């Protein structure tokens, strides 16, 4: 099913022409922002000299560090009065990465998600229960607007509260859910614990996103729930969810090339790789007024599937994300960098400099353990002080990374020393 067949099945030549027109506009718009003005000057980039799509590869990359440098508004290309929303992801050193949207940006994003959802067969007759977190995170509101645009009845359930989720599914006969894969598995178990048979709930489709998972996990969720699960890809820098989405054939995610120009590069050299080779995904947003971003290094590893999809869409597909080129961790759908955890620990004098991050999965939910050593000189000799310290660590970490960690206080000297290549992260989860 097509939301906009003209665009989705556009002839490749026409698509490239459209991309070039939009790229030129995006570059002109970017050049008006303080950040890109300087970048273009420093790299002797002249927007007028970009006369073909191929010239894009000569432009400098934009990184997450650049987004932090330009915080909060260095990349904004429109007056404040034109902006109607912002979203943010937690930053690596405390500062967030903030993305701005005009009314048109929000409308276009909703349209893109309506297109994505319809590509999986969802229609206005569906009841859509959105179990992603609402708020600064793009996952919740992104699909919310898309589903409304499509005309579904939307249940903005947000994440957590499993019994309530099940009740909503039963009472309103939910047919489509948006959920992290780990929560889907967990919720399936809760349904079974309630003495219910999961497929009886009648959920037909699940959009799985926000964290990496394997084909085996998808199959398990499909079996457990008796539904079809679709892979989706997005990142807040590129609006949020809906950058790429699987169609009904579930064989790779169509990356919507009328909104984004994708490239695959060698993460070490920055050199562009031919279609079909695996590397880092780089995306240029060519459809956002408030905040154009040029050649953004996603740090996600994948490959472009060169063959056209039998569904008739001409937008190329990417494979499921294979990993990251940096040390970012995804915990219950939330992006966490070890450096964020470190920055909190370094501020607290009662704990030493050594730490360990241990990730595991309990009843299909991610758990983050942080193991720190008590600093001998700061030991006050009473339990109250230790409990207070633990509470302080949990609160400060939760404020920065939004994930609730479990703190393990260790005796001094129990962790490997920080010199050399200390193993800081132990990921016991099976993807």
């Amino acid at each position: 099913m097509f939301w906009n067949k003209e665009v989705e099945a556009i002839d490749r030549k026409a698509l490239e022409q459209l991309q070039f027109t939009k790229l030129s506009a995006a570059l002109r718009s970017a050049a008006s922002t303080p950040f890109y003005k300087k970048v273009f000057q420093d790299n002797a980039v002249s927007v007028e000299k970009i006369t073909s799509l191929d010239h894009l590869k000569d432009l400098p990359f934009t990184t997450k560090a650049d987004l932090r440098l330009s915080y909060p508004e260095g990349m904004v290309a429109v007056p404040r009065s034109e902006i109607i929303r912002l979203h943010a992801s937690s930053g690596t050193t405390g500062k967030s990465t903030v993305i701005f949207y005009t009314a048109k940006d929000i409308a276009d994003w909703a349209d893109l998600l309506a297109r994505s959802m319809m590509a999986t067969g969802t229609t206005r007759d569906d009841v859509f229960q959105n179990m992603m977190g609402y708020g600064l995170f793009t996952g919740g509101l992104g699909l919310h607007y898309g589903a409304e645009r499509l005309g579904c009845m939307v249940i903005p359930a947000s994440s957590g509260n499993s019994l309530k989720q099940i009740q909503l599914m039963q009472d309103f006969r939910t047919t489509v859910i948006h959920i992290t894969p780990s929560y889907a598995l967990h919720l399936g178990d809760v349904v079974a614990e309630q003495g219910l048979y999961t497929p009886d709930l009648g959920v037909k489709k699940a959009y799985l996103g926000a964290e990496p998972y394997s084909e085996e996990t998808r199959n398990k969720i499909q079996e457990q729930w008796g539904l079809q699960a679709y892979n989706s890809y997005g990142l807040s820098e590129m609006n949020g969810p809906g950058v790429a989405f699987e169609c009904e054939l579930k064989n790779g995610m169509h990356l919507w090339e009328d909104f984004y120009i994708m490239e695959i590069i060698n993460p070490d050299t920055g050199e562009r790789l031919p279609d079909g080779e695996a590397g880092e995904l780089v995306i240029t947003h060519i459809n956002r007024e408030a905040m154009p971003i040029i050649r953004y290094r996603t740090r996600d590893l994948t490959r472009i599937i060169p063959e056209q999809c039998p569904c008739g869409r001409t937008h190329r597909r990417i494979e499921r994300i294979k990993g990251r080129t940096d040390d970012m961790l995804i915990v219950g759908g939330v992006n966490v960098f070890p450096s964020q955890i470190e920055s909190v620990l370094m501020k607290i004098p009662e704990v030493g400099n050594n730490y360990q991050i241990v990730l595991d999965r309990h009843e299909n939910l991610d758990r983050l353990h942080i193991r720190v050593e008590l600093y001998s000189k700061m030991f006050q000799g009473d339990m109250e002080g230790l409990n207070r310290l633990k509470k302080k660590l949990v609160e400060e970490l939760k404020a920065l990374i939004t994930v609730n960690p479990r703190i393990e206080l260790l005796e001094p000297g129990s962790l490997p020393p920080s010199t050399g290549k200390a193993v800081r992260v132990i990921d016991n989860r099976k993807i």
Partner: protein
Amino acid sequence: MPQQISIFAENKPGKIERISGILGKNSINMRAITIADSGDYGIIKILVDRPVDGCKALKDEGIAATLKEIVALRIDDSPGGLHRAASVLAKNDINVDDAYGFTIRGSHEAVFVFQVKDIKRTEKVLQDAGFSLLWDNELYFL
């Protein structure tokens, strides 16, 4: 003011073995030991004959240890002995944070050892009520 050693220890086998080994090697004698446990970790409190030396020996081995001031109250080793002292504390709204007791060999007396927020006031309240406290060496060499 008497002191005891307070030690941070993970809740794992071999911890008391290590601590008692260090104290023994340094010829430090223990009077009493208590362990408060809070899941993953606990606090071991030890009353010894030479607290300053004992604490230093433990710290030198990399153990998180510190000295905590305590009140050591002499009470009768007879029914109601502790109750009389506890009544004084309660009447003065003094909260006992952590405590243990033991009897004194060859006497009809016992010692109630405890931690409180305001030690000076606690000592005064007890002495005013006619109780006798044990001071450093009296306690360490019982």
